């Protein structure tokens, strides 16, 4: 932890200045004819197909409006005609870089309705995989932030070291991106021999990556100049927009579903870890919290690997799964933020209605508010620091 949180006073000053500047920028003295700049849907910086219509005055954004739906796959509708085991293959693809974590809340919601609980070994492995998908997701986000601010190397470092994590996920689930490994009442399969040690090695690589990227990117004065005091989200605004995960912790809100509202079926209470927050609420603080979360994630994985109990990995569930009628909402702390599934069952083979509360949808909904008055280059860094996956917005 070489990076230190700077003095509050300086940051408060910065925030004040940036707010004043934002007000001043919108009320421009010289009226010039605006220009509409269309960023996307095909654009190098929008990781997916998000389109941003920005009304510009010079290089300053007067109003920005995200347009999405280019990847809308209608999973809520599709889930209504699929059986419960089939739904996990769909929800895999919501946030495709941290896909195991998408399955967890849905399975937990179904387990809640069925009143079954996975055996302890399955709970541990589930938590490990959940955390590994967070690592795989977030280090890509960190590397991607490098691309957004114009550095070419971080993304390659991220891809390089993410591969070690993905290899481990593949070794146990069979799928790099779409594990489809979580089952109602447990897991599909047990760990292969040697997996625990290999995973510890992979975590070591991830920690090396964190140190490397901290020196290469976070410590860089240009990077700090590009991100400090840019895109500040005040606490209350973030809460009203429903921001979650790192984006709200970067604004100093100490709220983590893993710690505060852990659903039964995960074992975060068995390990010693810390929720990181940063008081600034700017782009830098969000990225900084992300980096610390990766480090914390490797610690969680390491501890859990040491504690895995022996036993079965599947509870007794009927072969054909019919979920009793009822409604349940389960949310977990996913790589991109809080993800929840509101499952309505009528006692059939398939859910009656699944409302997918994906983290990025809420996280991105703040952009029209946040992008007002910034420069065009800052659009990119702010979006990069919010870190969304288009599949997670469009579902």
């Amino acid at each position, binding site marked *: 932890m070489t990076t230190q949180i700077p003095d509050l006073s300086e940051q408060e000053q910065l925030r004040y200045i940036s707010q004043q500047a934002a007000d001043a920028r919108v009320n421009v003295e010289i009226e010039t004819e605006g220009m509409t700049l269309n960023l996307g849907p095909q*654009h190098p*910086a929008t990781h997916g197909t998000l389109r941003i219509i920005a009304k510009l005055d010079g290089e300053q954004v007067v109003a920005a409006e995200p347009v999405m739906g280019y990847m809308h796959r209608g999973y809520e509708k599709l889930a209504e005609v699929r059986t419960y085991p089939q739904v996990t293959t769909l929800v895999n693809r919501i946030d495709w870089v941290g896909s195991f974590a998408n399955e967890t809340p849905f399975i937990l919601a179904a387990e809640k309705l069925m009143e079954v609980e996975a055996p302890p070994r399955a709970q541990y492995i589930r938590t490990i995989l959940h955390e590994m998908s967070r690592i795989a997701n977030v280090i890509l986000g960190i590397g991607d932030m490098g691309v957004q601010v*114009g*550095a*070419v*190397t971080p993304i390659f470092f991220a891809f390089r070291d993410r591969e070690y994590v993905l290899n481990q996920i593949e070794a146990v689930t069979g799928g790099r991106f779409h594990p489809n490994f979580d089952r109602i009442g447990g897991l599909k399969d047990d760990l292969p021999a040697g997996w625990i040690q290999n995973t510890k090695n992979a975590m070591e690589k991830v920690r090396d990556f964190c140190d490397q990227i901290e020196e290469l990117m976070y410590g*860089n004065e240009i990077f700090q100049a590009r991100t400090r005091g840019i895109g500040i989200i005040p606490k209350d605004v973030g809460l009203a927009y429903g921001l979650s995960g790192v984006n709200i912790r970067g604004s100093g809100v100490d709220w983590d579903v893993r710690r505060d509202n852990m659903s039964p079926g995960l074992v975060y209470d068995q390990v010693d870890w810390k929720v990181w927050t940063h008081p600034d609420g700017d782009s830098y603080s969000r990225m900084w919290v992300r980096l610390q979360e990766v480090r914390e994630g490797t610690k969680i994985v390491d501890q859990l690997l040491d504690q895995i109990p022996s036993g079965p990995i599947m509870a007794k569930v009927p072969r054909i799964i019919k979920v009793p009628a009822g409604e349940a909402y389960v949310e977990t702390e996913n790589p991109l933020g809080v993800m929840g599934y509101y499952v309505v069952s009528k006692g059939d083979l398939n859910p009656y209605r699944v409302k997918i509360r994906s983290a990025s949808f809420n996280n991105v909904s703040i952009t029209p508010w946040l992008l007002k008055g910034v420069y065009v*280059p800052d659009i990119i860094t702010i979006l990069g620091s919010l870190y969304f996956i288009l599949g997670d917005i469009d579902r």
Partner: protein
Amino acid sequence: MISILSVEIPYWGQTTFRVLGGLAAVLLPAGALVYIYLFKLMSFVQSRLGPMEAGPAGSLQLLAEVGKAFQKEDIFPRKADKLVFAAAPFVVLMSTFLLILVVPFGPDAWFVNLDTGIFFALAVSSVSVIGILMAGWASASKYSLLGGLRAAGQLIAYELPLVLAVMGVVIQAGTLNMQEIVYAQAEGEIFGISGIGNPFIITQFIGFAIFLIAMQAELTQPPFDMPVAESELVSGYMTEYSGIRFLLFFIGEFATAGVFSMIASVLFLGGWWVPGLDPDSNLFNILGPAVLFGKVMLVTFLIFWFRFTYPRFREDQLQKLAWKVLIPLSLVNIVATGILKVVF
């Protein structure tokens, strides 16, 4: 370069030699540094191998890329100003070829030996701004327009520190002639210590640093690549170009990097001369280009190292850097150089 052969060559022959020599002097270093640094070193930094298929260790990759660019359709946007759009890459490239004219490669190997060489070089280097503005405006694309305007603002802002950094050298050498600047370094002495001559990088270190930074900005290389910022402006002023015209921009970018590095080597590293050898010996007419090439690779190594490492500045930040840091610093440098020049 002509007089080395000491044979009578008709005028058209000399012209042909000059044209071929100019092409070689611009394109060979450009190709070399694209392959060595952009393709290979960048890959090594990122734990990968880079191109491996075309030629041994991918060494012919560049030719493959050129071949690919030639095959592609030359697309003109419908609303583009066709003539300006077509001409813009040539204007940019022209500035590069004009720059090479005044670079000396040996005691007798030069294209033109202008008395105001460095002045000429700095003047023609600004021509590329016109080309970039033409490209940005004629593309009829908002990305291109923003990129072009950013480029214009940036290049003009960094022209100033570039010129001022050179001023120190000019004061110390007492001449604007590039060839004589090399001689001044070869025959000079540092505060009375002779022997290794006086490469101006030692006395003009601040000037060299400023020149390097300003050069990086003039070349729109990261961290000063706001005009082509691929994550926001797609490709800036080059967005709408394809095929051969895009290739021309690409060549222009890296050839200019090579030529600017040549100028930097001449001004600060002693050009074609190596310490310990007599600058007047005929040996340098053969060795000189190689020595200069070596120094160019050294300077471009720095350029590319920065390129792989740094994120880019925002437009206002890089303007601030130019006007608030580099220009005052170079003015101080000039004053200091002037005082020291008078004192010693």
